[in-house]
């Protein structure tokens, strides 16, 4: 399912901002210091030091803005989930069905048996996620190095020039197809069910033809926005919607104790996978940073999409610095210039052929604006400092919303518990982003928020609720 692959990248990364920042604060250099690779022209040491201070200032200055850029979508996702849970009873009804990943049932006789079953369920689920992440990372890392960028569909042509990679090509296509199919499932099937339940709740009659038209349009536009190009806000809205749908599915089909244990276990897993030197997610992020690529844009919510687009663009045309590419270097701030010896598989013959077939691949301001529907009053985003964004994996959205959704579904303290979990998660996210600004590398976004969320859920439900209830009964105010 989509969640497993999404969980593979449920970490916060600022890899793009890092590379972007280097380029923007030193306009005199037209080379970018890639992670782990020294630039071919070594700068004087003084310049590097002052440049680092400047970098830190800029990072912290825009830190608050980045936090809000993530607060808003996380809040929206939670609001959607809570609103659905409170109004549509379908998602809180337990009709006995469970996911295949959690085979053990929780309606056992003894508490001990129930605890054991839920622990086994959580173990299996985390195991499945771990295995899928490992598969993803292995395929991503050990494919043929001469081949670059897996973001656009016509990369397939390039892959066939290298015989050793045709085999790997199948696997990469499998990953892409798997992502594609899971998004398809979410956007069509699950949203159809969702819409159906909403109509049932509000007793709205609708014919199948209208429904088909609505779902078809919703789904197709969603697939285009997520997997290809689309207006930024629309893409963000779709990512929020699919995260909310996924969270609702989890809330419905995971039994009580299993759900809480999975939340706890996955934050531990996230911590280990991102921070341990041999952790799969860390390897994934570092590999992506080394190759200066994006990681599966369908799995990550990004607050800006400009540089993603440039990256995908420049990856095809800019990698061979010896080739006279008509691409304006100053326009594309992310131009990753590879070492001259390694042409990345872009033999001049091939590039010429591509240029001939597809036309000159220039990312001009106009084409970017057109595609992203930016307001024309705005300056070109690549030159604007404020357009550096921050990214959050969709798995994070899903688990945050799942926690808050469960709090609103099952807590007897009702809204107090929901509000407490909401504030706790936001504060956890704030702290994570603060750490991100300090350490400047990919960090797990789940541990702090989920820990705060769980602590506040159980504390509010068991301690605060009776207190507030008593106060409300007597109308005492604190």
């Amino acid at each position, binding site marked *: 399912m989509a969640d497993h692959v999404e969980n593979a990248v449920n970490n916060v990364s600022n890899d793009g901002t890092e590379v972007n920042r280097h380029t923007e604060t030193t306009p005199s250099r037209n080379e970018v210091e890639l992670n782990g690779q020294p630039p071919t022209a070594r700068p004087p040491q003084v310049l590097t030091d002052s440049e680092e201070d400047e970098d830190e200032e800029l990072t*912290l200055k825009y830190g608050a803005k980045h936090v809000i850029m993530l607060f808003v979508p996380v809040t929206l996702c939670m609001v959607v989930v809570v609103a659905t849970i409170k109004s549509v009873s379908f998602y809180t009804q337990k009709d006995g069905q469970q996911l295949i990943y959690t085979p053990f049932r929780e309606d056992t006789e003894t508490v001990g048996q129930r605890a054991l079953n839920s622990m086994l369920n959580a173990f299996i689920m985390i195991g499945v996620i771990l295995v899928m992440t490992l598969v993803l990372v292995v395929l991503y890392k050990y494919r043929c190095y001469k081949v670059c960028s897996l973001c656009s569909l016509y990369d397939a042509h390039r892959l066939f020039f290298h015989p050793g990679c045709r085999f790997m090509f199948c696997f990469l296509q499998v990953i892409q197809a798997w992502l594609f199919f899971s998004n398809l499932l979410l956007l069509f099937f699950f949203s159809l069910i969702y819409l159906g339940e909403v109509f049932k709740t509000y007793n709205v009659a609708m014919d199948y033809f209208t429904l088909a038209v609505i779902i078809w349009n919703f789904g197709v536009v969603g697939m285009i926005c997520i997997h290809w190009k689309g207006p930024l806000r629309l893409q963000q809205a779709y990512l929020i919607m699919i995260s909310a749908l996924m969270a609702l599915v989890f809330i419905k089909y995971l039994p009580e104790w299993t759900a809480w244990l999975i939340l706890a276990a996955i934050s531990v897993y996230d911590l280990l996978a991102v921070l341990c030197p041999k952790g799969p997610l860390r390897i994934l992020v570092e590999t992506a940073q080394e190759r200066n690529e994006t990681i599966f844009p369908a799995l990550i919510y990004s607050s800006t999409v400009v540089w993603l687009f440039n990256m995908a663009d420049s990856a095809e045309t800019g990698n061979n610095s010896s080739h006279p590419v008509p691409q304006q270097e100053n326009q594309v701030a992310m131009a990753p210039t590879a070492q001259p010896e390694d042409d990345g598989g872009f033999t001049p013959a091939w590039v010429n052929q591509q240029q001939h077939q597809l036309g000159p691949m220039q990312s001009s301001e106009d084409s970017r604006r057109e595609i992203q529907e930016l307001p024309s009053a705005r300056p070109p985003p690549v030159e604007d400092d404020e357009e550096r964004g921050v990214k959050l994996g969709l798995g994070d959205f899903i688990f945050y919303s799942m926690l808050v959704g469960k709090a609103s579904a099952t807590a007897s303290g*009702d809204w107090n518990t929901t509000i407490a979990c909401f504030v706790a998660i936001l504060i956890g996210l704030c702290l994570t982003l603060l750490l991100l600004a300090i350490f400047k590398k990919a960090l797990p976004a789940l541990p702090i928020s989920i820990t705060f969320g769980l602590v506040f859920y159980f504390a509010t439900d068991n301690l*605060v609720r009776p207190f507030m209830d008593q106060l*409300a009964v007597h*109308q005492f*105010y604190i």
Partner: protein
Amino acid sequence: MTLAVFFGCAFIAFGPAFALFVFTVAKDPLRVIILIAGAFFWLLSLLLSSLVWFIAIKASNSQDLTLQRGLLIFGVFFSVLLQEVFRFAYYRLLRKATEGLAAISDDDGSAISVRQMAYVAGLGFGIMSGAFSMINILSDSLGPGTVGIFGDSQYYFIITALMTLALTLLHTFWGVLFFEGCEKSRWWVIAAVVSLHLLVAGLSLLNPLYEGSLPPVYGITLLMGVWAFFSSGGSLHSLNALCTRRKAEGESS
């Protein structure tokens, strides 16, 4: 009950706070973060005081009603004291953060002054306090029911909304005064804020004798508002300037 009561009470309780948020806080990301962190600190204080109350309840005889009421009153006062302690802790945290912010800001000073932080922190406390007091009651008011069917007051919802409004505003004013007192090391101001908070909580113990609790609380709110206004640098002159400038603008347009 139902929608009329729901919307009425919701707007009474949260209208001013929401307006303050939209007009003064929402545009600046730093203020939003300070607001939410303020809410978090209030929540922490509530958590700890509930823990203490819960332990006391569990350790006592649950059948003895006067004892339970006494423990609840103790819980109220302890919670008030803990809230003020956490307000002080938040003040310390913000002071530390201001130094950091001033260092990295490109303006002459910090991006946000201590007075603004005081206001936003107070508002954060107030909004969270109001939310916890009111939202469960609001959600109950949506459903069917008869208020006071067993002889209790019929004005339960509206009084709750009014008290929530008063407390939200009070927390905002207290935030301003408290931080100002800490900044200028005027400990009597801090003592006044704490004792007034205890007084307000004590007045609420008079409920359901609403005449005894609501008017004094609103009187205190007004007093606090005036005090906070003068403490944060306002004056009759600036008020006058505001009015005459508006009049002058009205004449010239």
